[in-house]
């Protein structure tokens, strides 16, 4: 990727992430701190190493982006963290949720919807592009199996991806998680065009 595209992508992901975390904070009624934010070029086959390896149990919330360009957003959590999120969303004591049933899955999906939409809202308003999220899919499985959903799409066109990775936590440290954004080539080139036009 060209230098320009990378810095533009970093800028926009930063703007989007800040807004996404604000949305999450509003939703769960807790302050959210961003612990780290990184942009890296990773081989698609290595992505699962970032979430504890392909066999690690995980809960994933996935949504696609459409409109001006295509892309993928994925939130991945350790199951215990996902359970804690459900407890916060359902306003019950942390530790109540022990598995992901239909209502739990719906609550996590709605959280993904808010995070994804807030992320895209900020980028859309900043660039004038129309970027629309799909409804969310919530999955619980081995991390590798969850990541196939995005990996297969990316590997169609490339062996590497420019992954934006945000780790965050609540003030009391009850919750931490990762938020991945994987752009399609299409999305990157659209963003570069808006940068060139700006």
């Amino acid at each position: 990727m060209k230098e320009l595209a990378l810095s533009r992508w970093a800028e926009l992901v930063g703007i989007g992430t800040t807004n996404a975390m604000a949305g999450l904070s509003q939703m769960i009624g807790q302050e959210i701190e961003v612990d780290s934010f990184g942009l890296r070029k990773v081989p698609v086959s290595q992505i699962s190493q970032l979430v504890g390896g392909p066999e690690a149990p995980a809960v994933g919330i996935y949504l696609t982006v459409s409109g001006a360009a295509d892309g993928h957003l994925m939130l991945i959590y350790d199951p215990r963290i996902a359970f804690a999120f459900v407890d916060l969303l359902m306003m019950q004591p942390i530790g109540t949720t022990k598995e992901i049933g239909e209502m739990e899955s719906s609550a996590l999906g709605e959280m993904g919807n808010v995070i994804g939409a807030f992320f895209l809202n900020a980028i859309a308003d900043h660039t004038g592009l129309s970027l629309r999220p799909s409804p969310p899919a919530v999955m619980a499985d081995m991390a590798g199996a969850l990541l196939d959903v995005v990996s297969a799409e990316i590997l169609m066109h490339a062996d590497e991806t420019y992954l934006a990775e945000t780790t965050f936590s609540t003030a009391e440290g009850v919750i931490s998680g990762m938020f991945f954004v994987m752009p399609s080539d299409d999305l990157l080139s659209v963003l570069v065009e808006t940068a060139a036009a700006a």
Partner: protein
Amino acid sequence: MAKVLIADDAAFMRMRSASLLKELGHDVIEAENGEEAVSLYQQHTPDAVLLDITMPVMDGLDALRAIVAHDPAAKVAMVTAMGQQQVIMEAIKAGAKDFVVKPFDASRIEEALWKLVK
């Protein structure tokens, strides 16, 4: 008391909104997607509609257009996380009376509903 149609694909959100509206003394009809919202609107002619946008099968903007085409006097507020300026403009142009960005607090929904049915 009003008859309110809520459309959201997330059962969690329908549960939340429905319990809030019932507490306020309203009758609630629930739809899981835009298509269902349109057909329930035609069946029940509710006093107000709270429409999510990001939904499978038919999204909220298309549902809004279909509802307004069927009933130009329909009182619809969008309730969505997708608060992009372009989307807000599109919804208002298509006939939405209000635009509530999720996550919302109870008072915001109450206010939106009051404006719709006053």
